[in-house]
């Protein structure tokens, strides 16, 4: 990823050459398209594959003020072995925690292959001076995080100060070096699909490896139409530049059915290449157990009870 020079203030995008046109998104049409896609019904074998994939794509998350080492340790164990009763269920992709819990998480996941992702940049609000946010990002990498989930400065974005938002992402990317960087747009605060598209393209131009919908702290988060808009932005970047950027919906996907619907949308919009944890993640906490229940239902033919799945 080339170094991007600091922008003079008052300028908009883009510096990255050959950026796709920002353009507009029609709300009525995009919501209708998302509804249509959600009604696809897929073969049972494909559903089993999708559920297994959903587990492998999960970032098991706890981001609470009352997180303790004990809580995170339990989460990490579940991440490594989601279903103690079924060894064939794979580990999840990552655990996602606050900076203070990174070391605990690191110790507990060990060399299982599960990554440790940490939030940074004054998560969730982002309302903090840039230098502090950049320093935080650098620090969590030192503490052992494999992945950094940062938030964009929505206040600046909504005030039209796109250059400032862009700058910050560039600086954070610089600070974390090769570490995988997810940029959270917080779509629930952006107001329109037009803004979601604009923010997506801006984040990608600034160096995001992944764009992520939400912090999970708002009640409205990753809806299917919003996911579709972000995937379309990713596709446009790929068509224009050949670069593959990942996507992560967070919050709003609470059950296996929604997860599978989301994967259908990914499949139809971006194709098979994106159906991998390297390019798609689910940010979730309660989703995992519902997916495990569905997996066991597919294997045994019986509807399941939550009692048989651990809460960690």
């Amino acid at each position: 990823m080339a170094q991007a020079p600091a922008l003079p203030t008052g300028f908009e995008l883009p510096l990255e050459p050959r950026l796709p046109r920002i353009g507009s998104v029609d709300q009525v049409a995009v919501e209708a398209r998302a509804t249509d896609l959600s009604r696809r019904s897929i073969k049972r074998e494909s559903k089993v594959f999708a559920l297994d994939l959903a587990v492998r794509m999960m970032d098991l998350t706890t981001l609470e003020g009352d997180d303790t080492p004990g809580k995170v340790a339990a989460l990490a164990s579940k991440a490594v072995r989601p279903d103690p009763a079924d060894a064939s269920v794979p580990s999840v992709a990552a655990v996602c925690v606050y900076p203070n819990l990174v070391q605990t998480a690191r110790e507990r996941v060990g060399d299982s292959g599960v990554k440790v992702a940490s939030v940074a940049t004054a998560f969730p609000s982002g309302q903090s001076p840039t230098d502090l946010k950049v320093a935080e990002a650098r620090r969590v990498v030192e503490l052992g995080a494999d992945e950094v989930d940062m938030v964009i400065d929505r206040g600046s974005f909504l005030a039209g100060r796109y250059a400032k938002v862009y700058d910050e992402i560039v600086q954070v990317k610089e600070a974390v070096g090769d570490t995988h960087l997810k940029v959270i747009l917080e779509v629930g605060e952006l107001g329109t699909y037009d803004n979601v598209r604009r923010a997506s393209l801006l984040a990608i131009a600034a160096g995001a490896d992944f764009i992520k919908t939400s912090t999970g702290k708002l009640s409205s988060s990753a809806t299917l139409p919003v996911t579709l808009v972000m995937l379309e932005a990713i596709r446009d970047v790929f068509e224009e530049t050949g670069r593959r950027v990942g996507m992560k919906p967070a919050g709003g996907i609470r059950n296996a059915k929604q997860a599978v619907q989301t994967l259908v949308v990914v499949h139809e919009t971006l194709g098979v290449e994106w159906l991998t944890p390297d390019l798609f993640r689910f940010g979730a906490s309660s989703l995992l157990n519902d997916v495990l229940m569905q997996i066991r239902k597919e294997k045994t033919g019986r509807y399941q009870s939550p009692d048989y799945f651990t809460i960690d």
Partner: protein
Amino acid sequence: MAELEQRGDLTPAPSAWEYAEAPESRDIVKLEERYGLFVGGEFVEPASGEYYETIDPASEEPLAEIPQAGPEDVALAVEAARDGFANGWSAAAPAERAKYLYRIARILQERSREFAVLESLNGGKPIRESRDVDLPLAAAHFFYYAGWADKLEYAFPHRRPKPLGVAGQIIPWNFPLLMLAWKIAPALAAGNTVVLKPAETTPLSALLFCDVLRQAELPPGVVNIVTGDGRTGAALVKGDVDKIAFTGSTEVGKAIQRELAGTGKKLTLELGGKAANIIFDDCALDQAVEGIVNGIYFNQGHVCCAGSRLLVQESIYEPLIEKLKRRLTTLRVGDPLDKNTDVGAINSRQQLEKIEELVAAGKEEGAEIYQPPCRLPEKGYWFVPTVFTNVAQSYRIAQEEIFGPVLSVLTFRTPDEAVEKANNTPYGLSAGVWTEKGSRILWMAERLEAGVIWANTYNRFDPASPFGGYKESGFGREGGRHGLEPYLAFDGVEASGG
């Protein structure tokens, strides 16, 4: 542009997973072996003694035997309609007429799934469309016009509206039940009785509709259904009716207009189209692609108002065409009863041959053809969604209505040029405009010679929204307050048609 055409296969990599077959069950529909004509509230055998077979175009499987109504049968039906009019319907209180129509609407809603399956079986359209579009709209039309039946004086103040008497109605095969609703609902709301002839290839939903009339306890003779081919229609046109309403090809429409000349019978026509779907460079691009796809591949392109001519502003041509071609590769052609199907079967062998002929002409005249890789079933009538680029205004595929899943792409530079090209056709049914700029939408709408203009959407219908064409796409409007006018007589001014 040429470089783009040679970009090669835009199919995504082979899928790791496929969509399931999600067939809607046929069991909900009970078919008779042989049907009768519905005259005077009963099913009767045709005096002609003739029957023909109706089939499922997706499999060519015969479904039932249908009467071929002859001139005598049509005359009997018209007489029954006259009786129905004189003995009750015209004298019935408008509020009571309204309640019959409300009953019909509600019963259609309740039996919606049954009708949707039958419609897809007999006509070839995907179940998703018959279930989500045709049936809800058909019920809505009856519900909407029920509300007008006892409010005519507000629809036409000072004009003292009265029913005409008996209306003869001839409908096409592309939306069989919906076209029936578009015709019967306003006619009855205005106080008329009707004789309706469904299309030759799609009679079944109209015949099942007679059972709804039985459940609604509609008085005999108010609605009469005569089935058959073009000869039946011709007999109806010549019959003792006060009005003819026809939806179908422009060619037949002109013949009917000639036939009725000098007779004083009122006429409305809803004919063919070659709509321009106009894409400006500031459109919402991905949604415009969906709109284009919906505009021409919805209902296999068997739509009079289909967006069959794509007019793309040159400045957005490359990205648009690329996205369009990619989108075509995700369209699923197949069993109409499969809930995952996007594009169903072509309605008849005759129509398939017409499409093939025009596509061959397109290739011969020099247009470039693109068809996504697509596995078609062995039996039945199918055509792959097709795009022609490098189309000139004079090519047959830019001038003639194909009535199939075939899109012709032309370009333009300025709004003025778009208007010029869009209007350069004897047709004038509909048009599409895609731009995020509101003032341009209105400027274009003002200049396009079309009866229906869709901005940033396409193929949207509603019983409250008047629909009909300019120029050779016909005259008269269906839907809205305006849709009542063709079925009423007024004190004072008479318009011949419309």
